């Protein structure tokens, strides 16, 4: 089984760096989809099967916290695992996201090994 992951970050540099980190995870990847904000992510999620979403918080148009909220309120999207990758370290925000049901929170900068471990924890458990 190969996985499709959606990366949501307004920084193209971070999106491409994450793709590199994903390749290090050595998980069978079908496709890595990319979105620059929450609105673009929801558009993709309406039309594509996605096994996991990894999103930034601070983005234009729709940020990561609103994206998670929208996904959890949508019966068709609420079961998709969502992890967050952000430079924000405020406890209140992390607690809110955990209460919404995210599967992980990584703080930028993070090493590729941390991305790999997260992917293995969330996706590897399904193999």
């Amino acid at each position, binding site marked *: 089984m190969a996985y499709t992951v959606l990366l949501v970050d307004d920084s193209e*540099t971070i999106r491409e760096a994450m793709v590199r980190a994903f390749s290090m995870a050595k998980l069978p990847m079908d496709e890595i989809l990319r979105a620059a904000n929450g609105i673009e992510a929801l558009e993709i999620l309406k039309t594509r099967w996605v096994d996991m979403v990894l999103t930034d918080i*601070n983005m234009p148009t729709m940020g990561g916290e609103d994206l998670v909220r929208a996904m959890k309120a949508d019966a068709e999207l609420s079961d998709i695992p969502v992890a967050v990758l952000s*430079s924000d370290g405020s406890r209140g925000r992390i607690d809110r996201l955990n209460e919404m049901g995210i599967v992980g929170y990584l703080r930028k900068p993070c090493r590729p090994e941390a991305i790999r471990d997260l992917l293995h924890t969330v996706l590897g458990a399904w193999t």
Partner: protein
Amino acid sequence: MSASLVTTALGTFPSILEETAFLFCDDSDEVLQFQEPPTGVAIAYDGPERGDLRLWAQSGFMRALAANMLGLEEGDPAAASRRVDALGELLNIVLGHCLTERFGESESMRMGLPRPLPFGDLAIDQDVGKWLLVEGEPVLLSWRMRT
């Protein structure tokens, strides 16, 4: 920005830069100068205090930053095309860590998005900012308080 956040920003920058892009700061108390017109980015923050953290750098530093973040050769055109984006993302990471260190994890802080600075802002930022030397390249870290 209070004096202690200045200290925090200067203290945070080298470790973030090293972890993000494997680039290293040299100790320098000198007032440096840019050898070419630099690019500036700023991010606003809001919480117990409001302000902008601002970062100015030359193209050489920005190309190296983008290349290392992406695992590319420094001369790769893809690194050159993403240099401004990479500079903004570096500032974003530095500011996120500065705010947590300065105000604590329990404080609710808001951060804006990276935005380009007009070249005319450089003169004031040079007066109030702090210089860092990164592998021979001058980098200017500055700030503005907002009320």
